């Protein structure tokens, strides 16, 4: 993904989002997003920080066979669009599940996992992934 050595601050400054699922909610239209932003991507309204629900369901998914640089180790892996209970969507990898068992509508929950290692001697980056709910 990078042809240069990335500074750890790239991930450090996203810690609230990556480890605690904190994002923003629009005070005008109610849209919830996992990114930290000032203006709503849908209606242009003002956004305020909020915590996103940690459970949701898979609305679409795919299995990646030809990965971008840095994800060879995990291939094949499942990438899913998750609709969170109570609003908001996130894109994430699914974990602890066989790709052949994934289906649309599957209930999932957020966990913190290793996302990538940037090369030999590079930093190990953690972030959210989703797994099938353990205690429905």
């Amino acid at each position, binding site marked *: *993904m990078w*042809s240069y050595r990335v500074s750890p601050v790239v991930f450090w400054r*996203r810690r609230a989002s990556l480890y605690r699922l904190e994002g923003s909610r629009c005070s005008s239209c109610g*849209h919830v*997003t*996992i*990114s930290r932003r000032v203006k709503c*991507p*849908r209606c242009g309204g003002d956004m305020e920080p909020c915590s996103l629900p940690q459970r949701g369901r898979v*609305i*679409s*998914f*795919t*299995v*990646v*066979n*030809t*990965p*971008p*640089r*840095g*994800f*060879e180790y*995990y291939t094949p*892996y499942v*990438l*899913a*669009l998750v609709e969170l209970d109570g609003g*908001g*969507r*996130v*894109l*994430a*990898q699914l974990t602890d599940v066989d790709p052949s068992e994934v289906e*649309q509508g599957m209930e999932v929950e957020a966990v913190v996992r290793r*996302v*990538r290692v940037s090369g030999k001697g590079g930093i190990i980056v953690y*972030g959210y*992934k989703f797994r099938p709910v353990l205690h429905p």
Partner: protein
Amino acid sequence: MRRVFVVGAGLTKVGQHWDRSLKDLLAEAGLKAMEDAGVDEVEAIFVGNMMSGILNGQESLGSLAADYLGLTGVPAFKVEAACASGGAALMQGVLAVKSGLFDRVLVVGVEKMTDATDTADVTSGLATAADFELELFFGASFVSLNALVMRLYASEHGLSEEEFGHLPILMHKNAVDVEHAQLRFEINMEKYLDSPYVAEPIRLLDSSPIGDGAAAVVLSAGSSPPSDRSVEVAGFWSATETLALCDREDLLRPKSIRAAVRKALEMAGLEIGDVSVVQIHDAFSIVGYLCIEGAGLAEPGRAPAFIESGEANRDGSIPINPEGGLKARGHPVGATGIYQVVELYRQLLGEAGPSQVEGARHGLAINVGGVASNVVAHVLRRVD
């Protein structure tokens, strides 16, 4: 407002040009377009390109273009809008001429993709069209994001995998007799269904190939057509959508495609039914189908059936991508938007050879960047 005309065009064959560099391709297309227009000078150059920094270690394509076209001194710069870079560069060229400050400009799109021999590098480069923090960080590739949309489309409309095959089959059929096309062979449904998944449900035969290419047009101002080989740029517009899929209101009906097409047609004083030939952006089959529906050629979920009906064939009521589209003519990313318009230019002059659409009068080109996060549409009109 002053009128803008395409007065000349040039392109290279799309493919794996092992013996040609980014510079060679750009210069060939640019000089061919100027020769076609019968001019040896332009007042400005706009370069459409997406990945030269990533794949070729080269930016400053404006200076590069002026330098290698022998036009050092003229204003020149690169325009980037992911896979819509070509269309975006063209729109900047048209605006420059419309402004009245320039009378004649060159727009050239170029992409040199095969210098990176590792697919992972090209995959990573293409992925930069998407949202880095919210998508690429988690291992999303460009094809996988389109796969998420395709699965949603199939489940919402209850479509089988077979139904997606109609567009790539038609594209390959169209490209067979097109000299500049990259993949000049036919496929059938059996081959389509046998092709492996790149990112399920997207198959290899849903996907445009990796290739090199460059295409260029010369634009001229005038109150009347400057030459007998002039085609008017009658309308154009571009529109954006959310960068990340997770923030998008309707993944199957991106407002960018609808807005760009509607406003471009409006500017030309046309409705979609008036258009004689359409260029859609079938980087993956699903994107092509969303273009067809966004342009109002088929109801949601009906684009595959529309292609199957034959209406989009070269001799159909509204031919789509008669040169094979991104799937088979090829998709040298930043050049694609210009290839679309060069092909329309030839169609409207009646110079499209075996791919010629009888009596073509108006052409529409839809150039899609990202997963429809940036869309540019152009309408060309034959001059009588």
